[in-house]
């Protein structure tokens, strides 16, 4: 009998052949970022331009798409790969830039420097930092390389970039030198010295280091990333922005479905669970329940039917990790789920995904179809006798459906209202059957853990939090976007190194993690390592991965009000503390920001908040007060100022502002003209005044004044 692993290996070879034939004949490859965020930024139009040229026969190029690379502030991105040339990544590509890229780069080989992120130096060395190369040996090679380049004063001529998985992990550490396209494999520290001397300086190829598998080399496509990858480690996002998510062949190239084949060939369900337990992986949905234990509990249940669910109802405002993962690498989730099904004895998987993610849904549908066609889903997977299939169910706009019992009710066709636990879904879940629920990020971690082993995974991170975590970095930060960091990295490293600090050098005030369920941490917490326990003890939570940076211009009371407004709006209305309590808290916050706060309001917020936390039915209610309680804890003085002095130090709460005209006024009357309520009076060339009783504090005068004559107090 042919083993699953052999079938897979056959399939992979076929995939490579197909890919080779497809790309082999074009000497230029254009990859356009086509995730939701990129499309929103205009990548569709950019894609159209390239296709238009191709249609007219003006360029002969292989045009394809890729998922999100995590660089939201620089989107849309376009990569141009060319034999014997430096790979170039273009950022902020508008339609005009796209035309320029065709006219200048594609046709005349002139790089459009204004928009090129890298690829502008003489030589570029790309080192694989894909998931399967995340090890010490690789890191030593990198460190040595950077040192040698410095020693030889080559920094101006050579740039070192890192790539996501290049697809031939067996050959690592691997290094590609552009523009000559020399690919060295299995490099040691000593080799690095030789490479710098012989190849970089003398321009010679070192034959014995060259990679052997030539066919694969032709498929290599390279994506250096910007510098901050140094602190990042990509496991979950290993293929995002690397492969075409609508082409299963590219996933196969990146060791796709190898974990599944391994499991089906060599491992019992029990061994799979042991491996997951060994990895120390914890649920990435927010609460951090040990994944292996969850699997074990579900596996132990006797039942005629069990279910595997992927929770893709990503609902935190400002969080888009799951969407990007699905859009960029749908197969990794599917593969994870099949392995989960095998481990617990289930044949049926359901992906519950937000209806607001049409592209992700589409990509999943395509991926499921492809996986079925290739025999990874359906009856008798890879000839193993194990059967498993996946169905997609859409959510319909209810944040609370991220809570597992609410999610189950929603799949069952009910109102998404949670129910008391126990029983837990592992015992009685969907249709009262044992059910294993994990979120997108958790599932995406499964294949690498199976391939590289639980120990490999648990070697990353901290004592209790293993592996990496994906964050959606947003707010007042230079590099907004998606990042994946090893657990234990500090908030400071994320904000200042990966995030590139705060725009315009404004002062850092807080970082909000965990979205509406989380809290705001102040400057004193910046050295907190990012792991479940540390964040909780600092007063926030890990959450699903939203991370918002707040600078001095944001009012913490208003921020907490924003989050509470969100949860209050999303409360399902079932239990009293959440339904009624959050409403009252919101009313109190509203009066505080409106300058009508009363003595004792802070205490009332605390009293309600603590009660709601402890008495609510589900996680939504239990965490709803967090943004308020944490800001009271860390920024109590701001609350007090609002209430006692009727002042908002961030000048954010309109009702607490006063506009006054000072002695700098030259009497130009610009403010008078712009005032919508005619609150300003004064004759020409005389100092004007504002009638405070009429002023609506719209700030129009303050914005229009050229002489700084209007003070905002």
């Amino acid at each position, binding site marked *: 009998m042919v083993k699953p692993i052999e079938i897979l290996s056959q399939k992979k070879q076929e995939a490579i052949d197909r890919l080779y034939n497809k790309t082999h004949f074009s000497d230029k490859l254009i990859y356009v970022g086509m995730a939701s965020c990129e499309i*929103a930024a205009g990548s569709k139009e950019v894609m159209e331009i390239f296709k238009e040229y191709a249609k007219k026969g003006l360029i002969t190029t292989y045009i394809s798409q890729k998922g999100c690379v995590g660089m939201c502030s620089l989107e849309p991105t376009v990569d141009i790969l060319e034999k014997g040339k430096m790979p170039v990544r273009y950022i902020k590509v508008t339609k005009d830039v796209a035309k320029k890229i065709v006219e200048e780069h594609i046709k005349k080989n002139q790089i459009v420097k204004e928009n090129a992120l890298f690829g502008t130096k003489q030589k570029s060395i790309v080192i694989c930092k894909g998931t399967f190369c995340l090890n010490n040996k690789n890191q030593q090679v990198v460190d040595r390389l950077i040192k040698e380049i410095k020693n030889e004063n080559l920094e101006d001529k050579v740039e070192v970039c890192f790539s996501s998985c290049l697809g031939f992990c067996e050959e690592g550490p691997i290094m590609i030198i552009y523009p000559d396209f020399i690919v060295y494999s299995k490099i040691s520290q000593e080799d690095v010295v030789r490479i710098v001397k012989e190849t970089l300086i003398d321009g010679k190829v070192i034959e014995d280091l060259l990679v052997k598998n030539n066919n694969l080399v032709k498929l290599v496509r390279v994506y250096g990333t910007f510098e901050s990858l140094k602190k990042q480690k990509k496991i979950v996002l290993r293929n995002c922005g690397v492969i075409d998510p609508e082409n299963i062949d590219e996933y196969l190239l990146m060791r796709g479905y190898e974990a599944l084949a391994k499991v089906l060939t060599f491992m019992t369900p029990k061994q799979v669970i042991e491996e997951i337990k060994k990895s120390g992986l914890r649920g990435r949905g927010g609460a951090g329940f040990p994944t292996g234990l969850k699997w074990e509990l579900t596996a132990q249940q006797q039942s005629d039917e069990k279910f595997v669910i992927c929770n893709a109802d990503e609902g935190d405002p400002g969080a888009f990790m799951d969407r990007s993962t699905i859009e960029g690498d749908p197969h990794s989730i599917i593969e994870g789920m099949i392995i989960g099904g095998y481990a617990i004895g289930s044949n049926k998987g359901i992906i519950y995904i937000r209806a607001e993610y049409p592209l992700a849904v589409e990509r999943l549908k395509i991926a499921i179809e492809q996986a079925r066609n290739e025999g990874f889903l359906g009856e008798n997977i890879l000839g193993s006798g194990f059967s498993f299939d996946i169905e997609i169910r859409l*959510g319909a*706009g209810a944040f609370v459906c991220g809570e597992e019992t609410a999610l189950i009710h929603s799949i069952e066709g009910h109102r998404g209202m949670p129910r008391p636990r126990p029983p837990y879904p592992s015992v009685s879940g969907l*249709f009262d059957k044992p059910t294993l629920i994990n979120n997108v990020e958790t599932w995406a971690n499964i294949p690498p853990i199976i391939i590289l082993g639980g120990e490999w995974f648990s070697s990353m991170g901290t004592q209790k939090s293993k592996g990496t975590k994906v964050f959606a970095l947003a707010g007042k930060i230079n590099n907004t976007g998606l990042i994946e960091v090893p657990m234990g990295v500090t908030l400071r490293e994320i904000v200042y190194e990966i995030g590139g600090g705060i725009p315009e050098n404004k002062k850092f005030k807080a970082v909000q993690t965990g979205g509406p369920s989380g809290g705001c941490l102040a400057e004193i917490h910046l050295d907190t390592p990012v792991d479940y326990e540390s964040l909780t003890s600092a007063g926030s939570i890990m959450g699903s991965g939203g991370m918002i940076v707040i600078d001095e211009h944001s009012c913490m009371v208003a921020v907490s009000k924003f989050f509470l407004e969100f949860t209050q709006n999303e409360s399902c209305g079932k239990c009293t503390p959440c339904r009624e309590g959050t409403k009252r808290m919101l009313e109190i916050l509203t009066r505080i920001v409106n300058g009508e706060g009363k003595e004792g309001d802070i205490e009332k917020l605390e009293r309600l908040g603590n009660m709601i936390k402890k008495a609510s039915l589900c996680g939504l209610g239990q965490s709803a007060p967090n943004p308020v309680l944490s800001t009271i804890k860390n920024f109590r003085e701001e609350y007090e100022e609002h209430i006692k002095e009727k002042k908002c130090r961030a000048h954010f709460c309109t009702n607490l502002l006063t506009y006054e005209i000072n002695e700098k006024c030259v009497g130009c009357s610009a403010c008078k003209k712009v005032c919508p309520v005619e609150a300003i009076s004064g004759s020409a060339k005389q100092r004007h005044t504002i009638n405070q009783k009429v002023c609506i504090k719209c700030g129009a005068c303050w914005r229009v004044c050229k002489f700084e004559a209007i003070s905002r107090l």
Partner: protein
Amino acid sequence: MQKENLQNDDLNLKSLREFLKNFKDVPRAESNLITILHKIQEIYGYLDKTAIEEVATTISVPTSHIWGVATFYHYFKLKKPGKHIISVCLGTACYIKGAEEILRKLKEELNTDIGDVSPDGFFSLEEARCLGACSLAPVIMIDNKVYGNLTPQSVIQVIKEFKRKYKEQK
């Protein structure tokens, strides 16, 4: 006009019935309720009463239950929407960059409220959770197109421009 509407309703009901065949006499048919409601919204543009009643009888789910589900999820529209839908993103990034002001301005300009239709039936106004275009904040979406980096002034321009283009095409 009325006749045209009637014909539309018939066609809509026909395609709904066709879709419902997938769920007749299948086990746990009622678990597909949300999928079916999505379909109704796709066909009718909102959750039409006749359509809900049709679903209730076909898959044997009490009408009240469907009503409870339909009103629970914000994605479902209970009223016939305007020709074009404006979604104002109130996600974190947009909020911080002034989405509330954009929304206020739009309400004023369109003379309508969130979840309602402008008097001329042209625009529906809706709020959205993060539209995923944080770098362009604040943003709105008209139908499926995103308009970013808005100010209270420019958003009115966007609306006017949209209407003008629509008229031109007609």
